[in-house]
């Protein structure tokens, strides 16, 4: 299962991920950073299994993040 990974600490809250994929991302109004919806946290890094049909959108998000804190792992 492919996984979205979000290194949240270094997020600058630019909103790019939400603009492309609001099914997986939203902005936190608490600290102004992006939230990976349903993501599971491990030491400040969030992970989420994504469906194969969502991979193309996820790739766009990875590409759009200006500070490269979003990664896609596995096929």
């Amino acid at each position, binding site marked *: 299962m492919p996984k979205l990974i979000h290194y949240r600490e270094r*997020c600058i*809250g*630019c*909103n*790019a991920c939400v603009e492309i994929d609001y099914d997986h991302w939203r*902005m936190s*109004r*608490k600290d*102004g950073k992006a939230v990976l919806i349903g993501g599971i946290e491990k030491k400040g890094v969030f992970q989420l299994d994504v469906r194969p049909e969502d991979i193309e959108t996820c790739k766009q998000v990875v590409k*759009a993040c200006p500070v490269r804190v979003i990664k896609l792992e596995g096929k």
Partner: protein
Amino acid sequence: MSKYGKIEVMAPAGSKEAMAAAIKAGADSVYFGVEQLNMRARQTNNFLLEDLPEVAKLCDENGVKSYITLNTIIYDHDISLMKKIVDGAKAAGITAVIASDLAVMNYCRKVGMELHISTQSNVTNIETIEMFSSYADVMVMARELTLKQVGDIVKQIEREDIRGPKGELVQIEIFAHGALCMAVSGKCYLSLHSDNASANRGACVQNCRFKYEVKDENGNELEIDNEYIMSAKDLCTIEFLDQILDAGVRVLKIEGRGRAADYVYTTTQCYREAVDSIQEGTYTPEKIAVWRERLSTVYNRGFWDGYYMGQKMGEWSKSYGSVATTRKIYIGKSMKYFEQVGVGEFRMDSHDIKKGDKVLIIGPTTGLVEAIAEEIRLDNGQVVEKAVKGDTITFKVSEKVRPSDKLYKVVSENA
């Protein structure tokens, strides 16, 4: 006090090391980013909300004003963090917030936090100053104005008696030294288009600093004598600083929150000395030449006088990165300081050190200490001409340094 009154030298503090170095070098004020809402959001060493009391205390103890740069564009989802930063700054006793988004200005006014206008607002005329004056006491002028335009603005502020919230005449600040933007600040979208990285959210990838080829639609390449077609040289005003003060500027900002402690130390010290010399009437060409020489030892893309001396095309840098005449190499860590004899003990982690080498010791509390390694001793007491990686060494250091401070040697770029 001279005819100019109080002149403020404002230094960048992109890290704790740089902040300590700025204070040591004689800055009147320091500016720094907190969390991600600042123009250097891409950097990892911005200060955190919980650092604010410590920063305020450090600045207060040293009689230095402290400013938070909160100058990105602000979205709805940023409002809560923005308010937390302003509230935290006010509670901690930070002097002021530097902003460009009206949301920040509005909130600062609501809670009574001192506000300065950022270069991102590109203030270029007296009407704008009048409008901002109900919010802000200090405004930095757009870097694209000429000194004459700046001087005229100051005169109009006096004539029209334009006062800020504190009740004093609005103070005019300009950038005195450091990198220049090829676009009007706050209006560059290159980085957003190329990398989806908005400069106005502090994520600039600095496209203007790259080399470019110029081709037409048929693939014919235009021969250009300089491929760095957008990389402006760095601003340096040390040679005409007296004219800047004559124009009525009272705050001199040194650019460089992305720069290391040694850069901040050297630039701050030069401008501090220059301002003091002008105040004392001892500002001479000989001194200027020395300052210029010293400024060229730290990061720079070559110097020019920016736009202050009149409309002209930008002067473009001829290389990527710095043309500084020296650079520092990391060689080890500080272990101990023997206060009574003024000797530091260091562990060599890399390269070597020779008798007579100029070294810098940089740390978050120490700031920056310069020394010449005159007498290098190994831990068995033997005096040596040269020590290498793995050695533990001692030599005289005139000021206290602290464990984990980093030891660098300064080498000539031409060596």
